[in-house]
Every structure is written in C-alpha cells, then in structure tokens.
C-alpha cells in the first residue's frame, strides 16, 4: 500500500517535481477559479487560454523551447487581449463576453498560424498538452513564483473584487478601485494560465482552475471556505492524477484533470450545498 501510494514519488525525482508543480498550480489556480465562477466568467479562463497561444508561439519562434521567452510572450498576449477586452467592454455597448470572444478568436487564429508556419507537430503537442513529467528547475520556480504572486495579489484586491461581484454600483460610489482590481484579476488569470500551460498545456490548464472551483461551490456557502476547498481539491487531484498516471500508464496531464472531474461529479451528486441527490431526498421542512 505504502509502495503504491508513495513509492513513485520516493523513487523518481521527476514524479516529485511533477507533484510540486501541480500542488503550486492548484494553490494559485483554485482561488482564481472560484472568483471566475462567482463573476460568471467561467469560460473566460478557456478563452484566455487560447488567447495566450500567439504570444507563446512568438516566444518559441524567437528562441525555441525557451521558458522565459514563451512565458513572456504568453503573458504579453494574454494581457493585451485582457486589456482590449476590458477597454471595449467599458467604453462601448459590447458586453465583456462578446468583446473577449472577438479578441481571443483573432489571437487564436494568429497563434495557430505562427505555430504551424515555424513549428513541428511535437512543439504543437507540447504547447497544447504541456509536459508535467518534464518540469525543470526553472519551470518549477516559475510555477511556484506565480502561485505566490497570485495569492499575495488576490489578498490585496480581495475586498474590491468581492464587492464588485455583489454590488458593482456600490463599489463605484465609494471607490475607484473596481477597474484596477478587475484588470489585476485578469492579469492573475493570465499568469496562472501561463503556469498551467507549461505543466498541463493551454487546453487543460483551465481544468485545474475551474473544476476544483465548481466542486467548492457544492460544499460551501461562504467564499473563504470555497477558496480553501478549491485549493485542496486541486492539490489532491494533482497527487491522485499523477499516481494513477504512473500506475496505469495514462498521460499525466489529462489524468490530473480527470481526477478533478471525478471530485466534481461526486460533489454535483452528493454535495452538501445544492447537490442533486440531496435535492431529491425528501426532507421535512423546519418550523421557522
């Protein structure tokens, strides 16, 4: 049993690195996912994941599979799309979702063009699905650093972020912090996607953000608890996914996300707050 649960991590360094990577990723991405969900921006993560593609591709074009260049490129592309989206949404009649849809699709088309012009299929696979089992020191540091930045910045902008979700007009009437907090939050989304795409690839990076967050929704009525549950759920998914991928020989990135998916489905069914089974069980109503 011990061998089965801990053996792979004791024996192989690449497994320990992968575990450290997914843990750091889950700690940062979980809370971000909760806010995306509460701001009704659950699909924004997905859109932004596509938006960072041309940046990463240009980084690759300039300097090959270089961590720094691809990260910087991804960050820049993501932030440009986020800023343009925010600008158009706040200045014109176009709503945020429509503005984002237009820019991310353009960005994606550009990214695919660049990748297929200069890259090989292997490079494309790396960008799309990541390589959690081949995290080097630099990448690990990047992911951990991003998680640290995420948690600190999230703590700083927590209050305006919450109030802007609940009662945007009130925040506007007492403070001008709404827009800066929103942009800082979008920057954090991009930051976590860039972390995520090194480990899980652009497509699956959103999974470790949204699935644990949606899981948390079924167990907590309080946002703080929701954030904690999301982070824990993501971490455990990382561990269990890596373990299953090791023993069953399935690809590790998808395994991590699938485990998170199992947590989600179980919560959806049996969750304490609005789970489906709980809704269907007959419950006597209270007196008052």
């Amino acid at each position: 049993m011990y061998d089965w649960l801990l053996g792979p991590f004791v024996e192989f360094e690449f497994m320990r690195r992968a575990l450290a990577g997914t843990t750091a990723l889950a700690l940062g991405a979980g809370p971000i996912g909760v806010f995306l969900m509460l701001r009704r921006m659950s699909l924004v993560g997905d859109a932004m994941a596509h938006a960072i593609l041309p940046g990463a591709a240009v980084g690759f074009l300039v300097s090959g599979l270089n961590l720094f260049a691809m990260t910087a490129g991804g960050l820049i592309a993501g932030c440009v799309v986020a800023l343009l989206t925010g600008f158009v949404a706040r200045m014109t009649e176009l709503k945020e979702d429509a503005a984002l849809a237009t820019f991310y699709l353009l960005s994606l088309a550009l990214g695919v063009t660049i990748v297929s012009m200069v890259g090989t299929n292997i490079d494309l696979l790396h960008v799309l699905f990541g390589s959690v089992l081949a995290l080097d020191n630099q990448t690990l540091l990047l992911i951990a650093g991003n998680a640290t930045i995420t948690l600190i910045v999230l703590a700083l902008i927590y209050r305006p972020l919450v109030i802007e979700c609940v009662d945007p007009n009130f925040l506007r009437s007492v403070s001008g912090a709404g827009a800066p907090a929103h942009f800082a939050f979008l920057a954090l989304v991009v930051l976590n996607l860039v972390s995520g795409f090194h480990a899980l690839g652009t497509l699956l990076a959103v999974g470790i953000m949204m699935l644990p967050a949606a899981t948390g929704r079924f167990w907590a009525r309080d946002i703080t608890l929701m954030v904690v549950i999301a982070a824990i759920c993501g971490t455990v998914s990382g561990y269990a996914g890596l373990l299953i991928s090791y023993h069953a020989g399935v690809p590790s990135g998808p395994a991590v996300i699938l485990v998170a998916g199992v947590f989600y489905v179980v919560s959806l069914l049996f969750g304490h707050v609005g789970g489906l089974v709980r809704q269907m069980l007959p419950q006597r109503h209270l007196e008052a």
Partner: protein
Amino acid sequence: MTAALRFNNLTLGYDRHPAVHHLDGAVDTGALMAVVGPNGAGKSTLFKGIVGMIKPLAGRIERGELSARDIAYLPQAAEIDKSFPINAFDMVAMGLWHHTGLFGGIDKRGRRRVEEAIAGVGLTGFEDRAIGTLSGGQMQRMLFARLLLQDARVIVLDEPFNAVDAKTSADLFDLVRRWHGEKRTVLTALHDIDFVRANFPETLLLAREPVAWGNTASVLTPENLLTARRMCEAFDEHAAECAVPTVAA
C-alpha cells in the same frame, strides 16, 4: 443657509438626448427634498449625475466642499447579485468602506457599529443569513443599514419604498427623518404624491425640464402635475439640436 448642491443650467442624458434639461437651482444643506415626476422624468438620471456616475451633457453640478465620499446613494434597482455567497453582516459592513478602505480590518468598535446598524433597521438575528434568502423588504432594510454606516452628509435615495410593505416603508422613513434631524441633506425620488405632501417640506417636480421647485404645497398643484405628465409624453427620436446656449457657468 448654505447650498449643499447647486445645479447650473444642468443637462444630463444619454446619446445626446437630454433626460434632464436645463436645470437650475440649489439644494440647501440639511434639506429634506422629494423629487417627483412621471416615469421617464429624469429622476434617476439626476441622481446618477449627482453621485457622478454620468457626466453632464452641458452645464454643471457644483458640490461645494463635498467629496464623493460625502454622498451616499441607493439606486432604484440595485444591481445586486443575490446568488453571491455573502451574508447580511458582511454586506452591511461594506458601509464602513471609508474607515477600512481596501485593506483595513474591522475592529471591535466597527463590529459593534455594524451590529447597531443592523439592529437599527430591525434585522437583528439575520446577520449570518445569505443575502439570497432575504425577502425584498429585508433586502431594502439591509441596504438602509449600510447607508446608516456610510455616515454621509448627503443621502440620495432613488424610489426607496417601491415594492416594500407599509410597515417597512414606515420604519425606513423613520431613518430618513432621523437623518433630517441630524442636518443631513436627503434627496428622495418618490411616486406617492400623498406621502410626499405629508412628509417632505420641499419638492422638485421634474418632467425632464423642471416644472416647479420649492415648498411642497405650492409645487404639487393639480396644474403642475398635469403639465408634468404632458411634458413627459413628448419625446422625439429625431429631435433637433437644442438652441439654448450651453455656456458653462
């Protein structure tokens, strides 16, 4: 008496169409003023202008030494996400923003003030309830508790008693009266003419253009009310440019 707010040839609107047209006048400090008019008369637009949410198309609003934090605003249909996981206590505690700012914590004294405000609107015992479980009247009480904490010198209420029962509106109006007693300036948009006659010393009758403004009894005459209704019916999608010069004072 000094003016809390002064309007100079103020025009507010959307897409160049005026919703409030050429409004001149002043709101005295400590006034308890009703803003009355048919739907589409520009009441909400005027309030949005006062709190700075929209910019004047022409003219200006002078706020004297008032800063943004001195004006508290309760919008007509607050865009509150009721599904958000937050309880009534935290919601009311937002009213302490000017003490806590972005990062400040809420100390014991702050917590006591929040509890007092919640007690002041008769919601004691509801502190831990999620806002989504509150009724319409309880929601409005909660928002008034938040206004209490904001401790603002000017309070702008946009149809605060819509869709609440008689008991709730009486309780909430007691708070308005208390604010008036504390020399705060209170502007309230209302539709209940009899209620305005009974409770508000001063009234502005608006129908995009000001119809009358002053002592409530002299403003709310049948002739004025009829004029107001007629003026609001005339709206022209292809209106020509307004010829009145818009020189800012």
